[in-house]
């Protein structure tokens, strides 16, 4: 019963358009309640912690400046990172795309003779769809992040980048654990659920010698990697196995170690509403006798350098994956993450996904926003998401308007006609008269329109529309002036 009634598709190349994918969620009261509740909890905590920080806006400015500096000299910082990491005993690999990264990781696993891996939550691995490829190659993957375990065991997909199982509630978790771990009489008490997960995980931590993880930050100055998390399961993966493979997008680099001072402050407050996240792991290459003795890091481009080349869109790469934008987004609040058809949902997903996917899925994602600006307001690295959304929309429009079948598309036709009307006042005024006549057909005796055909139906399915008044403002103004001034009304 707690199995989702539909299976979300998070591959942008094949996912249904956003408005269609949103429909089953909008009709699912349990899912919407879970999403709204979880978001309210995080938002309240975040709001409190941002308020207590008198220098919050200065911190945002500093964080944006650090990320901008890193991106403006990305090549140099990456080379610096590679040199330091290599000197410390790490092995750096470069992957141009998802396929390249998967191939490198599979080869590394073959060298290790690994038939099983434990995994730290990493959105970058999900971006390259690593798990299904590993499974197909005969490698069993065990997620160790609590939320990822819930999703993996429940056959579900992540709907949020920080809290992937945000759409699942406690009793649903109980059902999944009881069924998949074979525990009878499991209660939905959080302690009992955590204990069940712990005993499931302990065996994996102690028996699987290879781990795959991601990175929150790469430090150019020292060649260090930083992972921040809440549970400590990540730290288990980072310390217990013999071999650690880290996958990281090339944009994750920070120039200096000291930059963490700013970044860790804004990340924890924005992501989970905490002053400091419980576990911050930092390591540099390999330390003999301590932790994994083999460390590989795969640096993934996968479209990022193309984003970097574009002036308006470049800011997308400042993202530190805190998810504050989706928590603040009134659209995400209604739809949750699955509707975005991508591992990256919410406002950041709406701009990141099409850009990473060569504008696949771009026809609907950049439009999945009312441009209310709540995302920009909370973004700790000041990504002007509405500005990028509009930029992507114009790219889509520029592309689509060349297509023959768009000539009679109501939206394209309508906007082209509107442009003509707005360029000449007399045409605009004539169109107002025509429009009044046309709308008159649909206007009821009460002066309101209750039903419209075509695209207008999308409006009147839930709202009325007041009929067009008899006199426009400009006609009133002209009549008043002709009547001799202010008195005429």
């Amino acid at each position, binding site marked *: 019963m707690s199995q989702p009634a539909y299976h979300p598709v998070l591959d942008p190349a094949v996912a249904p358009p*956003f*408005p269609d994918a*949103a*429909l089953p969620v*909008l009709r699912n009261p349990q899912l919407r309640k879970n999403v709204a509740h979880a978001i309210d909890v995080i938002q309240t905590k975040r709001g409190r912690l941002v308020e207590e920080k008198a220098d919050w806006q200065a911190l945002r400015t500093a964080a944006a400046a650090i990320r901008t500096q890193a991106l403006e000299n990305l090549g140099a910082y990456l080379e610096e990172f590679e040199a330091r990491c290599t000197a410390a005993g790490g092995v750096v690999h470069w992957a141009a795309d998802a396929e390249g990264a998967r191939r490198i990781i599979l080869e590394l696993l073959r060298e290790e003779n690994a038939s099983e891996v434990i995994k730290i939550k990493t959105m970058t691995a999900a971006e390259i769809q690593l798990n299904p490829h590993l499974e197909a190659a005969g490698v069993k993957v065990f997620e160790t992040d609590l939320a990822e375990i819930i999703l993996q065991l429940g056959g579900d997909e992540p709907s949020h980048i920080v809290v992937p199982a945000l759409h699942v509630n406690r009793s649903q978790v109980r059902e999944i654990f009881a069924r998949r771990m074979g525990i009878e009489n499991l209660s939905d008490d959080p302690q009992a659920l955590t204990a069940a997960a712990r005993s499931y995980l302990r065996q994996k931590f102690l028996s699987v010698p290879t781990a795959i993880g991601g990175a929150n930050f790469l430090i150019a100055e020292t060649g260090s990697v930083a992972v921040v998390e809440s549970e400590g399961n990540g730290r288990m993966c980072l310390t217990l196995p013999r071999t650690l493979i880290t996958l990281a997008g090339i944009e994750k680099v920070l120039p200096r170690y000291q930059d963490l001072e700013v970044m860790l402050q804004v990340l924890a407050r924005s992501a989970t509403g905490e002053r400091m996240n419980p576990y911050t792991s930092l390591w540099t290459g390999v330390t003999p006798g301590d932790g994994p003795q083999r460390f590989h890091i795969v640096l993934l481009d996968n479209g990022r350098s193309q984003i970097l080349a574009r002036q308006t869109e470049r800011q997308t790469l400042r993202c530190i994956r805190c998810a504050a934008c989706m928590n603040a987004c*009134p*659209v995400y*609040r*209604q*739809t949750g993450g699955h509707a975005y058809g991508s591992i990256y949902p919410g406002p950041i997903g709406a701009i990141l996904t099409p850009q990473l996917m060569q504008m696949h899925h771009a026809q609907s994602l*950049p*439009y*999945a*926003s*009312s*441009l*209310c*600006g*709540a995302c*920009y307001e909370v973004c700790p690295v000041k990504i002007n998401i509405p*500005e990028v959304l*509009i930029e992507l*929309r*114009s*790219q*889509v*429009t*520029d592309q689509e308007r060349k297509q023959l079948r768009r000539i009679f598309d109501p*939206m394209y036709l309508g*906007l*082209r006609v*509107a*442009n003509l*009307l*707005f*360029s000449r*006042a007399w045409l*605009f005024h004539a169109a*107002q008269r025509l*429009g009044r006549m046309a709308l008159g057909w649909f206007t009821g005796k009460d002066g309101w329109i*209750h039903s419209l055909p075509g*695209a207008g139906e*999308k*409006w009147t*399915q*839930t*709202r*009325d*529309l*007041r009929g*067009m*008044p008899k*006199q*426009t*403002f*400009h006609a*009133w*103004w002209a009549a008043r002036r002709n009547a001799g001034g*202010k008195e005429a*009304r």
Partner: protein
Amino acid sequence: MIYYSTSRLMFILRVMAMRASLFITCYNDTLFPETGRAVVALLERLGVELDFNSRQTCCGQMHANTGFRAESFSQAKRFIRQYQDVEVVVIPSSSCVAMIRDQYPGLVHELGNASLRSELDALLPRVYELSEFLTDRLRVEDVGAYFPHRVTYHASCHGLRSLQLGDRPARLLAKVRGLDLVPLANLDRCCGFGGTFSVKNGEVSSAMLAAKLQDIVVTGAEFCTALDNSCLMHLGGALHRQFVGMRTIHMAEILASTEAVPAEAIA
């Protein structure tokens, strides 16, 4: 003998010889002419001399936000050329002002020439949203309005985040005699209009609208007001559909309303 306080005198001096040009916006002209009439009644009552260029059409927001950059630029150019010589432009729509302030510079930088750029730079500081014009330029909060009703204020996203209107609307409403202002919960949450979003994503937009209506209905207000008729068209359409018994009204109409000429007479 007429007694004027110093501040009253200062106000009269500020307003005297103030000429403002009204940009009514395309949808107010077509669908909400009563808002325009109210702006005229209000500003003339305060002594502002008003101008209206009947060749005006649209600021280009709909085209810009739908991705029709070239078209929105041609409307931006038209706007800049039409208003370059006026003293101030007053616009009773926060999203159109946001369009002009946030998007014109980028459009003109990309598609315009140097002279258009300098015309825009000179024009931008003279463009005012209605409540800004009252509180910042005329420096008036008590506009002498009378509106004996229970009212809740909806903060349009563009007014809230782009224009940073802050407490300007509340300060203006607080001075309206007879008005009982009820605060609206989740004031910073979008109503789901978003222009073509309301049609392209009709169902998601409706879900956002439903959530907003819940907050609005519990205020028990008779009127829901805002500084943007686009949000009000969205909210008002649903209030009417559901027979909620609450009406939407642009703030200009509340501020224009007096004992002698109530809002209904202007509408």
